[in-house]
């Protein structure tokens, strides 16, 4: 076993020094920082402002629109609406209409709207003119603003007290509560909601890191085969030491990567995000990451899932001499790996559905789907999780044993790679 650690150490050092590792480790911090700075950069960029004007002989709707814009309803941050005063287009509605239409034609205005004389009476006679059919944000904003005004006037005309009007406009809010499996009730907190999405984050992180590391293992196995170092190493240690050393070394690489990512994520939400936005600050990241259940299951499923796929990739790598050959054999495995990624959106919302439950018991999906279910609300019962971990352990053992046999034979084999059926025969051989 001492030699396995020597192999692992070399594997770790060799991988950590590669460019792709450095790019990989910087990827998340850069993404997080970009998510902060890009929007403010967009905001500064010119040309993202939608200029528009309105023909409104009564001026009442126009005033409401101006007020709404001032109150900050003028679209999202990257996109802003700017009202050009109608007076710039002429004194009479007819002059204004013609001049605005021309302006839209010449792209000086993004759009123009006309508020009909009956708009505030019965909501009729409004129009909107633009060159773009895809952009609906502005139209939506205008419609909302004028509708609100219309509703106010309508209720006022019905001689209702302002207090009554306010009540009539009230929205009915539902108090959201969670019923746990044990029968207890509690109010749904933000952490519960965010926690649901955290489950997606965990699965994605798990998937990415397992796939990246297994892929790295495949490449390094093929590299050692094609540069013929395999034989030198095997003259010093057993194939099992060699393979387990490689698997171990890359596991350490993966943990370094994921550990760095999680730390960055934590630091970002703890210290950087609150300073930038209130919405981001409300993400109680500590509650999610600090949740020992999630973190420890992440560690368990990372380890088992990695061992499962690392063994498969290592076995496949050992029978191939070039990466192209390996790609053909890896294809089916990659397809299988896509399924938990596609099903995670279903599982996060329906962690106890039949589909989620069944998928979580397919050994190749268990690490991802179980992680998904454990971090979602409601989580599966402790017994089910424990059973699935044992089930996965059994499969990890079987697959590793098979892969070790394939590795032993395959790693010294050059020339045409064997057929999948042949490989499976080696794996099952006693």
């Amino acid at each position, binding site marked *: 076993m001492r*030699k396995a650690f020597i192999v692992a150490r070399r594997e770790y050092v060799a991988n950590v020094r590669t460019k792709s590792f450095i790019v990989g480790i910087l990827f998340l911090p850069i993404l997080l920082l970009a998510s902060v700075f890009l929007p403010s950069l967009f905001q500064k960029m010119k040309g993202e402002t939608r200029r528009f004007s309105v023909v409104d002989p009564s001026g009442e709707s126009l005033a409401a629109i101006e007020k709404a814009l001032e109150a900050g309803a003028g679209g999202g941050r990257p996109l802003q609406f700017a009202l050009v005063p109608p007076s710039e287009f002429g004194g009479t509605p007819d002059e204004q209409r013609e001049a605005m239409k021309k302006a839209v034609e010449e792209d000086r205005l993004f759009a123009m709207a006309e508020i009909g004389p009956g708009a505030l009476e019965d909501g009729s006679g409004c129009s909107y003119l633009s060159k773009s059919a895809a952009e609906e944000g502005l139209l939506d904003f205008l419609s909302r603003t004028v509708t609100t005004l219309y509703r106010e006037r309508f209720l006022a005309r019905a001689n209702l007290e302002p207090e009554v009007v306010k009540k009539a406009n009230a929205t009915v809010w539902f108090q959201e509560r969670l019923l746990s499996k044990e029968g207890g009730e509690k109010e749904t907190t933000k952490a519960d909601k965010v926690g649901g999405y955290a489950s997606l984050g965990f699965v994605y992180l798990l998937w990415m890191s397992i796939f990246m590391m297994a892929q790295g293992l495949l490449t390094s196995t093929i590299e050692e085969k094609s540069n*013929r170092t395999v034989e030198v190493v095997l003259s010093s240690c057993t194939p099992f030491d060699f393979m387990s050393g490689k698997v171990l070394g890359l596991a350490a690489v993966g943990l370094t990567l994921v550990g760095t990512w999680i730390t960055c994520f934590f630091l970002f939400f703890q210290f950087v995000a609150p300073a930038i936005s209130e919405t981001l600050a409300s993400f109680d990241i500590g509650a999610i990451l600090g949740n020992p259940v999630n973190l420890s299951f992440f560690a368990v499923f990372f380890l088992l899932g990695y061992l499962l796929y690392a063994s498969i990739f290592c076995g496949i790598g050992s029978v191939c001499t070039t990466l192209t050959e390996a790609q053909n054999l890896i294809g089916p495995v990659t397809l299988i790996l896509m399924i938990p990624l596609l099903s995670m959106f279903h599982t996060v919302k329906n962690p106890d559905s039949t589909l989620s439950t069944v998928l979580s018991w397919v050994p190749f999906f268990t690490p991802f789907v179980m992680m998904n279910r454990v971090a979602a609300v409601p989580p599966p019962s402790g017994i089910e999780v424990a059973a699935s971990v044992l089930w996965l352990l059994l499969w990890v053992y079987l697959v590793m044993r098979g892969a070790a046999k394939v590795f032993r034979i395959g790693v010294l084999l050059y020339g045409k790679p064997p057929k999948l059926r042949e490989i499976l025969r080696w794996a099952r051989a006693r």
Partner: protein
Amino acid sequence: MAIESALAIDRITKRFSGHVAVDGVSFSVPRGSTCGFLGPNGSGKTTTIRMVMNILQPDEGTITVLGVPAGEIVKDRVGYLPEEKGLYKKMKVREQLAYFGSLKGLEPREALARADSSLDALGIGDWKARRTEELSKGMQQKVQFLGATIHDPEVLILDEPFSGLDPVNAEVLKNEVLRLRKRGKTIVFSTHVMEHAEKLCDEIVLVNKGKTVLDGPLRDVKARFGRNAVFIDYEGDGSFLSSLPAVARANDYGRHAEIVLKDGASPQDLLRSLVGRVAVRSFEAREPSLNEIFVRKVGENGGA
């Protein structure tokens, strides 16, 4: 066993799906000797060596290395240079050597120190911090050899060590082998280049089609084939040589020929028939070359 063997192979057999690669091979190599492991391509040399290194396991028979059954325990006491040279291209030269050393059981610090001193000794110390891929092919060969010997093994197994080497590097390697022999190491090398074996070996083992054809001390093997060979250097057209009545077989190189005489024919008979037809510049009667023995034995055995 009269002399203690560094390596004793007893009737080993290895089958690969359908064909027998090694078929009951037996031989032993005395401690401190240099043994040439000869045979045509595909005769089972590499498979045998891999079984000695415990990379493959024999289906039948036993292998004893330094008095213990071949296995993981003796791996650290044996050095191995595979036929296909393999180095990590991206690794630095000294780290690479240290890695091979620590796999053979050296402490990391000791392994690094030895890597440095051995690189200095071979005159490529300036390259120790470079990546292996930056080295010339000849330098890489040296590094590979150092990798096989960094743990100062008692037994060194070299699989086709001279293949692909230019004369200068072949000379360097030969000197290294001689140096190790002087220090009492047991060296086994496989080759199909008979000149190397003839000059370097005390012992030879010849295998063909997975079977041992010939083995023993080189001197004895040669003596067994008698002194019926004649080596001549000549000028002129030597195409008639093989048709002379005294000649069983002639190996003609154009200016040099190795001639095997028929039983009962004497070198004088041959010399007489040469006079006047070619200008003889040297004439020597002695035991046949290893090459001749190789060709003859492999030929008898059904060819390569």
